[in-house]
């Protein structure tokens, strides 16, 4: 319809204002129709389930009766729940910090070498991010194997005895964080490398003329220029890491003695495997506050940049 009006110049010149108005109206109708599949998909399969989770969490196990905050009260009284809260925060925060540090350091090294070779190194270092996490975690599980651990075989050469990678609570926590850092730091590396390349060379020249050491150059030039990217990458990663499932599920399945369960895996254990859907929904809802905080900061950054442009 709109094409006829747009294609026929006589219509436009003849009754200019009203046809333009009509054209605009049609345009927005067409636009709405074009976005409709997206709206339906997100409304039915994302927004609705998210709201439905809140309702589910207020039902009893058989989903026959409304129990209000009963599920939450039950969770607060359980030690395992507090263990999961502790482990989720420890896992997400430690992993994000290490990913950011390693990503930053590696990005610097890649940035240092001649640009001819950068593509090759970048390509090699991003491989952990490309492999499906469940598959690469299997490789780690095999590297951590209690009796045939290839890592322990290497460590034995340095005089370090058998490390119980997934067998002991402390080590198991370390292992899931290690695997997460291994998968995630290449992403940080790529983001920081892109940010490093956008820092104008003149700033470094000015800094070295003023006699700045390499540390001062990083602290007073690189970091302030990269602040936005560092923050937004860390927030993104915090959301993804906090909501992680694959790594913990494949590597330890929550064990030993629930010490590595995070919200996602425990919700799966309780809700799907344990058959208590409302309780599982209640567990997963505890992810919402931290997700909301991170999302708010990300959105604020994006709208701020949007208005600058």
């Amino acid at each position, binding site marked *: 319809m709109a094409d006829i009006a747009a294609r026929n110049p006589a219509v436009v010149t003849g009754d200019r204002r009203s046809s333009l108005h009509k054209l605009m109206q049609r345009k927005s109708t067409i636009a709405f129709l074009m976005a409709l599949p997206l709206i339906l998909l997100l409304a039915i399969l994302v927004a609705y389930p998210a709201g439905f989770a809140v309702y589910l969490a207020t039902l009893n196990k058989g989903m026959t009766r409304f129990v209000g905050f009963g599920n939450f009260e039950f969770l607060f009284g359980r030690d395992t729940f507090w263990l999961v809260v502790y482990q989720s925060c420890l896992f997400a925060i430690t992993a994000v910090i290490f990913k950011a540090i390693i990503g930053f350091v590696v990005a610097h090294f890649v940035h240092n070498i001649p640009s001819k070779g950068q593509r090759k190194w970048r390509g090699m270092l991003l491989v*952990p991010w490309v492999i499906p996490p469940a598959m690469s975690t299997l490789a780690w599980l095999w590297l951590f194997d209690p009796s045939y651990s290839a890592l322990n075989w290497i460590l034995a050469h340095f005089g370090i005895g058998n490390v119980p990678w997934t067998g002991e609570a402390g080590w198991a926590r370390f292992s899931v964080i290690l695997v997460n850092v291994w998968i995630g730091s290449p992403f940080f590396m790529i983001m920081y490398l892109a940010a490093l390349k956008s820092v104008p060379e003149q700033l470094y020249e000015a800094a070295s003329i003023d006699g700045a050491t390499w540390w001062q150059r990083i602290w007073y030039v690189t970091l302030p220029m990269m602040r936005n990217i560092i923050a937004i990458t860390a927030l993104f990663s915090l959301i993804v890491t906090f909501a992680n499932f694959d790594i913990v599920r494949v590597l330890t399945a929550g064990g030993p003695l629930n010490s590595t369960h995070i919200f996602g895996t425990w919700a799966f254990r309780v809700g799907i495997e344990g058959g208590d859907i409302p309780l599982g929904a209640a567990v997963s809802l505890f992810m919402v506050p931290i997700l909301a905080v991170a999302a708010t900061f990300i959105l604020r950054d994006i709208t701020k940049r949007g208005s600058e442009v």
Partner: protein
Amino acid sequence: MANTAVATGASTRPNYGSMSRDRTWALRWSYFFLVLFAIFFLMPPIYMLITSLKTSAEISAAKNPWWISNPTLQNYIELLTQNQFLVFFRNSAIVSICVVIITMLISVIAAFALARMKFWGSATLATGVFLTYLIPETLLFIPLFKMFAWVNEVFGVQLMNHWWTMIILYPTLTVPFATWIMIGYFASIPKELDEAALIDGATWMQTLTKIFIPVALPGIIAATIFTFTVSWAQFLYPLAFTTSTSELVLPVGIVTTLIKGDVFNWGQIMTGALLGAAPPLIIYAFLMDYYIAGLTAGATKG
């Protein structure tokens, strides 16, 4: 040498010499640490490959685990002639290809509408798309589980335990991201281009297919690669919603069927994992630059 240069009055010379010496050392250290990090990052996939080329007898022998004495393709042959594994592969391939097609259709058209044809509430919708991108699947799988039971009761359509259910579910993970990338790419196209097309009498659809899609092709390729990678790697939804071995997709199939109780056949597991990782890795090897461009665009373009 440097001293004589100072003595003869060429004052920039010695300075330059020491800077280039610093530079050489910085370069050597950079390479040294890059090699260390590359070893760390590539160790698991390389160990997958090493293990996949060994026989079970060699794996359980207490020898150097990083060395292969008798390389063999037996694990690959066994796995690739096994009907079950081929079913997983087929399920994964069909699901991923369908999800890529559905995602790109929905998101390219919607991104065009959101970036160019502003309508009432379009700005809010763009923000909403971004928000749904931040909602993780770990929050949604339990309500979806219940919703599927309800659909079965009311409409008599069983969504549980079918691989094709994933074709309906995965777009929730891929569409918000793909739309977001495409909004960014479309917004960077100069307005004059589509105005010129409209003045020449092009319809909105023609503007999209003749101008926006060709110009934003790198973005479309990046979004396609991502959609494929995400749907190939998805683990939680198939683990929660499929159980029969004929309905599993590759990652879940490898994790649940190759590990039989306490008996771990590591040679086969590593072979399966490597074959499961192969399609995204091959695509990445050929289209690395698009992949990286999409990665940085996703979070930085706004």
